[in-house]
């Protein structure tokens, strides 16, 4: 019992540190006292404006997206019984990317393109679900294959758009595809999604533990598996769509953070879910702080850094684990 609590506490502390660093560090160096003053309500000063209007929304957006992606990855790994499942395996990133890039290349403005991306993501969820779902007999391999094939189709079209789009537009598209938080100014929806999806998943985490015993055994132990699977799919999709619409397709977090938590010895989903949410949030907000300040004023997309930060940690843990 003590180890999962320790890991959860560790990621809670790390999460708090990542939020604090995100407020203090940046192209304008601030002290902790400046930040505390700004948070206490002094929004009129230049420092207050930087903290409350620029850094706070962005660090909160990063944390929420990281938590949502880690949650979606952990859920899909149970649902699909596949350790390689990540939030994008069922086509949401493909659908969103296709919608957004198509709109951008047709000359639609920023807000319109964002809406097209959201529409593409939701359409992807509906399409993949609609094509694979059969009431009473939902074959999850069919779901996985449908998602993978759908994604492949979207990737092909996205490649075509990138080739045909005007040079000036391509850089913005690549930023979005790598995952970028520089336009994330209103994180409140993501936090609402994180709170609802997170609470629902933690409440259902006992059932996730039982579902890992296999479908029939879980039914015999009283889990209504058929409806639970639909709920898990919908929660994971809502989490992924929210994150993608705010930050683009940030990679690595959703696939690796649940494994990182497992490698640290937490395999009970009642602890794994909250730990993964905190770890994902901490990783993405740390990576974003680094992405916007390491080479300032040059901003690099955070998606490029999540992997650079996370890969050595996970490789070390994998190598040490016997």
């Amino acid at each position, binding site marked *: 019992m003590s180890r999962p609590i320790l890991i959860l506490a560790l990621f809670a502390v790390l999460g708090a540190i990542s939020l604090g660093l995100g407020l203090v560090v940046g192209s304008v160096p601030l002290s902790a006292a400046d930040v505390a003053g700004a948070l206490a309500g002094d929004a009129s000063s230049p420092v207050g404006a930087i903290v409350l209007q620029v850094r706070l929304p962005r660090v909160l957006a990063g944390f929420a997206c990281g938590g949502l992606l880690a949650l979606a990855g952990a859920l899909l790994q149970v649902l699909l019984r596949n350790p390689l499942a990540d939030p994008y395996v069922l086509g949401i990133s493909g659908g969103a990317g296709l919608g957004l890039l198509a709109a951008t290349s047709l000359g639609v403005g920023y807000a319109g393109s964002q809406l097209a991306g959201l529409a593409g993501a939701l359409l992807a969820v509906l399409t993949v679900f609609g094509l694979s779902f059969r009431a009473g007999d939902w074959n999850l391999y069919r779901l996985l294959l449908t998602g993978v094939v759908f994604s492949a189709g979207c990737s092909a079209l996205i490649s075509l758009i990138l080739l045909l789009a005007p040079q000036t537009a391509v850089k913005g598209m690549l930023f979005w595809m790598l995952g970028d938080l520089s336009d994330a100014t209103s994180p409140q929806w993501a936090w609402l999604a994180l709170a609802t999806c997170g609470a629902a998943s933690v409440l259902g985490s006992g059932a996730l533990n039982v579902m890992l*015993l296999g479908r029939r055994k879980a039914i*015999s*132990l009283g889990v209504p598996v058929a409806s639970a699977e639909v709920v898990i799919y919908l929660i994971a999709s809502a989490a992924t769509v929210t994150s993608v619409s705010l930050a683009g397709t940030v990679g690595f977090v959703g696939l690796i953070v649940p494994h990182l938590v497992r490698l640290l010895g937490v395999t009970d989903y009642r602890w794994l879910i909250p730990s993964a949410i905190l770890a994902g949030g901490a990783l993405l907000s740390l990576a974003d702080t680094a992405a916007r300040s390491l080479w300032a004023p040059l901003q690099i997309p955070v998606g490029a850094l999540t992997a650079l930060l996370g890969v050595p940690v996970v490789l070390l843990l994998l190598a040490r684990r016997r």
Partner: protein
Amino acid sequence: MKLTAEALTLGFPGRVLCQGLSFGVSPGQCWAVLGNNGSGKSTLMHALAGVHTPLAGTVRVDDEPLSVMGAARRARLIGLLMQEEPAEFWGSVLDYVALGRYPHRRSLLGYDPEAERMARTQLESMDLARLAGQALSTLSGGERQRARLALVLTQDPALFLLDEPLQHLDLRHQMQALDWFARLARASGRAVLMVLHDPALARRYCDHAVLLYEADTPLAGAAERVLTPDNLERLYGVPVPL
């Protein structure tokens, strides 16, 4: 509670395994299910547990059809030991056995000190107390089978459906498990239905039996009436000395 099977036809689309099976299991009874490979023993267990829908017929708990019963309530009444379960598991033997308390959980999150206490008691009864902290995947086949029995004992249902409970067990643990379940039926009013391959053990431990014939109507009833040398020879196709 009384479990009743009414005119069950078992099988899968395109393959009928057995037809017209009717019987009732009352508290305190211990049933053996006998039949050749592929005669539908596991399918019968799954149908009685509500994890498989029979091609025709109804399973009832008292007067309520199993198909309309809520999953959690059904799991408090009926426990199923399956013949095959994945060997991979995320946690320790104790974590595994404690999952038997899932249908009884009171807190929303499922943290339940009572569950751990009951799981430890059943690990004790299956001689596994020593291995409680081990990863389930490190256990031998027989030890894992005993952990699976401990899980279903921790579930503490009114009716135990045990599909080949003796597989992988050494002789001592086979006898111990049979004693345990037969006593559970006699002393605490539970009912037990188990798939066995040895008619002699069925005679010794069970008071009722189901014989699943491949090409004939199944037999079900009191052991002394059903488990006769003639019936068993017709079942297995070889003489069966009792």
